[in-house]
């Protein structure tokens, strides 16, 4: 176990180095998309932790991301805190929100929970219009500042975003991986597998479920703060219901229990608008089709995945291999 862990750390550092060199050779747009992918990786892994491991559904993670983003922006503007502290505050604030929601969620299951979080996703962003400090429909500016001069003249803003988001993604993936491998991760899987049996083993179901919600919300809050960093502002329109849905889509595409797959979902979510653009261009369709094609593709992909590769491509491959091995014996 110890050996494996140190191997993982090496892998994560290697990943960081590869990303570092990549960010040097590709053009600005790709770097920006890279930052977005990193943000989605974080957000999707928070869903994987919650849905894949603790078995709870949330359609409200877009709202929790909004909580994190607003917390970071307010901390930055009103309290003038350094940017790294703002991200910490984003995590804490949304974790508190998640704990409250989790306390409600622990009493609910399946469709009830889905509907409650859905209502939250629709309702919460509109609250921003109620409080002056949150800046209403226009939202707040969230500016992390220029990259430090020590990185050189050539270092662009987008590359700076990418660095921050990439580093955050690596750190949070590493943290989630460890949490899932720990006692808590096993507890969640036990509950998802059979809650009565888990309870008989002395697991406090409600407490573990709330804990899962809290951690997942904290990670989502970090993703929210990073997302608004790349956009530059925090406003209700940045966190629509569609965001919550795409996160869920990303998690299902990744394989709802495969943390390492979060990358797949994130890349697909960023790539789909591009693909849709190319397709729409090819078939020379009208503006209506062009604007709605990405949404259509995401949703259609979601349905197809749930129907035919319900547990994700990685898991599917593993299952097929296991079957193959079994038949050879």
């Amino acid at each position: 176990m110890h050996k494996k862990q140190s191997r993982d750390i090496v892998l994560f550092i290697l990943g960081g180095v590869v990303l570092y060199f990549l960010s040097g050779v590709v053009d600005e747009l790709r770097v920006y998309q890279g930052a977005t992918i990193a943000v989605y990786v974080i957000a999707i892994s928070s869903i994987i932790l919650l849905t894949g491991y603790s078995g709870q559904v949330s359609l409200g993670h877009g709202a929790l991301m909004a909580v994190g983003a607003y917390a970071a922006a307010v901390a930055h503007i009103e309290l003038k805190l350094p940017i790294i502290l703002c991200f910490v505050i984003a995590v804490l604030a949304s974790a508190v929100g998640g704990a409250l929601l989790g306390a409600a969620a622990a009493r609910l299951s399946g469709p009830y929970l889905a509907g409650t979080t859905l209502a939250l996703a629709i309702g919460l962003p509109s609250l921003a219009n109620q409080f002056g400090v949150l800046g209403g429909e226009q939202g707040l500016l969230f500016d992390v500042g220029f990259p430090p001069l020590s990185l050189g003249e050539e270092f662009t803003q987008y590359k700076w975003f990418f660095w921050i988001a990439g580093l955050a993604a690596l750190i949070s993936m590493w943290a989630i991986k460890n949490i899932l491998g720990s006692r808590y991760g096993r507890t969640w899987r036990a509950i998802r597998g059979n809650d009565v049996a888990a309870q008989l083993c002395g697991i406090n179901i409600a407490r573990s479920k709330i804990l899962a919600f809290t951690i997942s919300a904290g990670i989502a809050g970090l993703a929210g703060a990073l997302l608004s960093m790349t956009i530059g502002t925090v406003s209700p329109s940045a966190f629509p219901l569609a965001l919550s849905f795409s996160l869920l889509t990303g998690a299902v595409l990744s394989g709802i229990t495969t943390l390492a797959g979060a990358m797949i979902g994130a890349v697909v979510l960023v790539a789909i608008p591009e693909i849709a653009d190319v397709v729409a261009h090819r078939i020379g369709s009208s503006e209506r089709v062009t604007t709605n094609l990405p949404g259509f593709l995401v949703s259609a992909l979601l349905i197809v995945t749930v129907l035919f590769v319900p547990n994700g491509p990685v898991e599917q491959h593993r299952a097929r291999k296991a079957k193959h091995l079994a038949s050879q014996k």
Partner: protein
Amino acid sequence: MDLLNTFLIGITAGTIYALMAISMVLVWRSTRVVNFAQAGMALLSTYFGYEAVTRLESFWIALPVAMIGGALVAALVEMILIRLLVKHSTSGPIAGVAPIIATLGLLGVIRSISAMIWGGQDLRIVGPVSNDGFTINATTLVFSPLKLLILVTVLVLMLILSVIFQKTNIGLALRASAYAPEIARLSGIKVDWVRTLGWALAGATGAVAGMFQTVNGNGTLSPDSIEFSLLLVSGFIAAVIGGLDSLIGAVIGGLVLGLMISFVLMYVSSGLFFIAPFVILLTILFIRPQGVFGAKAARRA
């Protein structure tokens, strides 16, 4: 006067939510799926209704057109999507959430297809009668002939539905398949087709909700309209208040929700338009997690 106005607005909105809740309950009873795409299906049916209104210039022809369209769409969805879903995604960690995810995907597909066909702009559906308030003793009420008409139509529909369920063989088959599918199958009921029928009924009911929600709002229809976001959430909340399993519960849930939202908007703050339903839902689930009319076991399904 404010009190009366608020009450009447709440009741009218409530009957529409009740229709939506009924369609969700019908789907839940027939396939044990909470259909998050119900509002999307209602949207699509309302677009059918819009086409009929613009061509034939009669709301009363458009309404059945929308209903038939909605029923066909729902039946197709059940035959293609839900049957596949039941067959494929029954094992592994995804099993518990697969229906939810699939219907959400369906919602996205329907929305983007409607937007592709009809565009994102507002389309106007003219109601059958005016939405200007009645005037009594020189004070104008918010309650209008249109709202009265909606109330009456919805009540008639509910009556028809309850007669179907309580007095006909089809209703008996629907109830039996929901209650005990295996035994129903043994007694010669074609459970699969009964399920499709349940979805079709739900589609038709949702279509009426969509049409009325549009004319009762500002009369415009667009894929992103606030009315349909509200319909999506309110229908679900009303159904949950009613316990997801009971038609009467759905009706009462809808009315209660409509009244509560209307009173909150009037007496607390009109800015709480979207957050009020959430708070109401949380409050109710905290007091009774299985819904006000739900049986104790309903929560677990």
